[in-house]
C-alpha cells in the first residue's frame, strides 16, 4: 500500500513538474514566432481605449474574448458586425442605449474617447481567436 511518504512525494513531484511545464508553455506561446495576440498593432489610441474599457467596467455587462458578463452582446467582433458609425452612435448617446429594451449605461463619451474605444475594438477584432469568431453571433457576413 501507498505510504504517507510516497503520497507526499507524489504531491511535491507532480506539482513541480506541471508547474515548470506551465511556465515553459507560457514563454513558448508569447515567443516572437508563436505570438498571435496582434501585439504589434497596439497603438496609443488602443491603450487609451482599453483604459476606458477598464475604468468603466464594460466587462460587467458585456463579454470580450468570451470573458465577462452574460447580459449584453459579445464585443470582440463588434466592428465587423456593426461598423464604426453604429458604435459611435451607441457610445456618444447621452441617454441609455436600449433598442431592445435592455439598458446600457448612458456614457455620452466625447468624440476623442469614442475614437479611442473604436480603435480598441478595431485592434481586438484582428486577434486570431482559433476559430471562436466563427460562432460569435451574428457575424457581419450574414451568410455564414
Amino acid at each position: 500500500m501507498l505510504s504517507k511518504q510516497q503520497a507526499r512525494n507524489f504531491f511535491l513531484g507532480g506539482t513541480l513538474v506541471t508547474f515548470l511545464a506551465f511556465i515553459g508553455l507560457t514563454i513558448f506561446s508569447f515567443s516572437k514566432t508563436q505570438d498571435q495576440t496582434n501585439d504589434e498593432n497596439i497603438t496609443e489610441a488602443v491603450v487609451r481605449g482599453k483604459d476606458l474599457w477598464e475604468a468603466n467596467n464594460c466587462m460587467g455587462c458585456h463579454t470580450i474574448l468570451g470573458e465577462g458578463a452574460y447580459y449584453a452582446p459579445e464585443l470582440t467582433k463588434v466592428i465587423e458586425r456593426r461598423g464604426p458609425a453604429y458604435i459611435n452612435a451607441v457610445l456618444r448617446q447621452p441617454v441609455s442605449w436600449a433598442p431592445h429594451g435592455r439598458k446600457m449605461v448612458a456614457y455620452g463619451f466625447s468624440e476623442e474617447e469614442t475614437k479611442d474605444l473604436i480603435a480598441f475594438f478595431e485592434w481586438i477584432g484582428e486577434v486570431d481567436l482559433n476559430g471562436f469568431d466563427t460562432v460569435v453571433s451574428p457575424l457581419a457576413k450574414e451568410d455564414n
Partner: protein
Amino acid sequence: MKYKSQKVAYWFFALSMLLFGLQIVYGFIMGFAHAGFDNLHEVIPFNTARAVHTNLLVVWLLSGFMGAAYYIIPEEAQRELVNVKLAYVQLISLALVGVVAIVGYHFNYWEGRKFLEIPRPLDYLVVINVLLFLGLILVTLFKGKRRTTTALVLSMGLLFAALLYLPGMLPFDSQVKDSFFRWWVVHLWVEGVWELIMGGILSFLLIKLTGVDREVIEKWLYVIVGLTFLSGVLGTGHHYYYIGVNKIWLIVGGIFSALEPLAFLAMALFAVNMYRKGEKKHPNKLALYWTLGASIVSFVGAGLLGFAHTLPQTNLYTHGTLVTAMHGHLAFWGAYAMIVLAIISYSLPNMTGRKLYESTLGRMAFWMSNIGIIGMTVAFGVAGVVQVYLERKLKMDFMVVQKEIEVHFMVLLVCATLFTTGIILYMIDFYKHGRPNDEALESVSDD
C-alpha cells in the same frame, strides 16, 4: 474549543454571514434584470450589481477561510494564537477594505477585470491585510508543539493564494495578456490552491467527526492535493482556447482539464469512505451533513459540470455564455460555500458552549439551500443551452435570444427564493448559538 484565542474565528464567521446575505441581495437584482425588470438601472446598473455580487462572494469565502484557520491552527499546533489583538485588527481592516471597495463600485470606482475589480490602491491594502493574517497563522504554526499535515496543507493553500494574487496586479497594454494573467489568479485559485484550503478543512473535520486515524486521513489528503495540482496547473489551458493565444493550449488545456474532476471525485470518495469507516459517531450531525455535502456537491458542480464544457470542441460553443454561470454557481457553492458552512456548523457549538447539534431548523437550512441552488443551476443550464443553440448554432441576434430566455430567469428567481429561505434559516441557527465565551473551553486533550 481548546484554546481561548480560537474565539476570534467566531467574528470572522459572523462577518462572512453578513456579507453572504448582502451578496444574495445583489444576486436578486441581476436575476430580475435578466428577467426583464432592470428598474434599478439608474441607481445600481448591472455591472455594479455584478461586481458587488462576485466580490462579496470572494470576500465572505476568504473571511470564512480565515476564520477556519484561526480555529484550526491553534488546535492543530496545540498552542494559543500568537497575538489575538492583531487578529482583531486584521478582521476590522478586512471588513473596512471590503466595504470601501463595495461602495466604490457604486460610483464607477473600479478596474473592469472580471472578479478582480478591486482598484489598484485598495489592492495594496488587501496585500498588507493578508500578510498580517499569514504572519499570525504561520508564526503560531511554527511555534506550536506539532506541525500536522492538515495544518501544513491549509497554511500552504492560504500562502499560495496570497502569492497568486500578485500576477493579477501586473499592468498590461494588451487585453489578451491581461486576460491570460487574470487566470493565474482566478483559475489557479479555484482549481488549485483553494482546493488545498478545502482539503485542509475537510481533513480536519473528518478527523474530528469520524474518529478515523489521522495518519490515514492525511495520507489521502496528499493524494488529493497531488491530483489537484497535477491536473489543475496545466488545466489553466481551458481558459486559453479562444482568447487569442497559441493553439498548443487546445491540446494541453483539453487533456489536463479533463483530468481535473478526478481530484473532486477523490475528495468525495475520501469523505464518504472515512465516514463509513469511522467508529466514532460525533453528535454534531449538522456538521457532518455539510461536510459530506460539500465533498459530493463540489464533485457535481465543479467536476461534472466543469467537465461538461471543458473540451475545446464544446467550449467553442459555450465559451462566455450562461452555461458558464450555471457551472460557476454550483461549483462555488459545493466546494467553497459549503465547506465554510461546514466548519461554522462544527465550531459554533464548541465556541459558544451551546450544543445545538441537531435541530429541524438546521436540517431545513441544509435541504432548502441545496435544493434551491440545484434548481437555480438547472435554470441557468436550460437558459444557457437555449442561448448556445439559438445564438451560436442558428446565429440569431444576442439581444433577440435574451428576450427568448427571460422566462428561465423567472424560474431562477423562484429557486433562488427557496435557496435564500434556507440561508436565512442557517443564519437564525447561527444567531441562536449566542456569543463565544471562555466557559466553552474544554480540557486540553489530543483530538
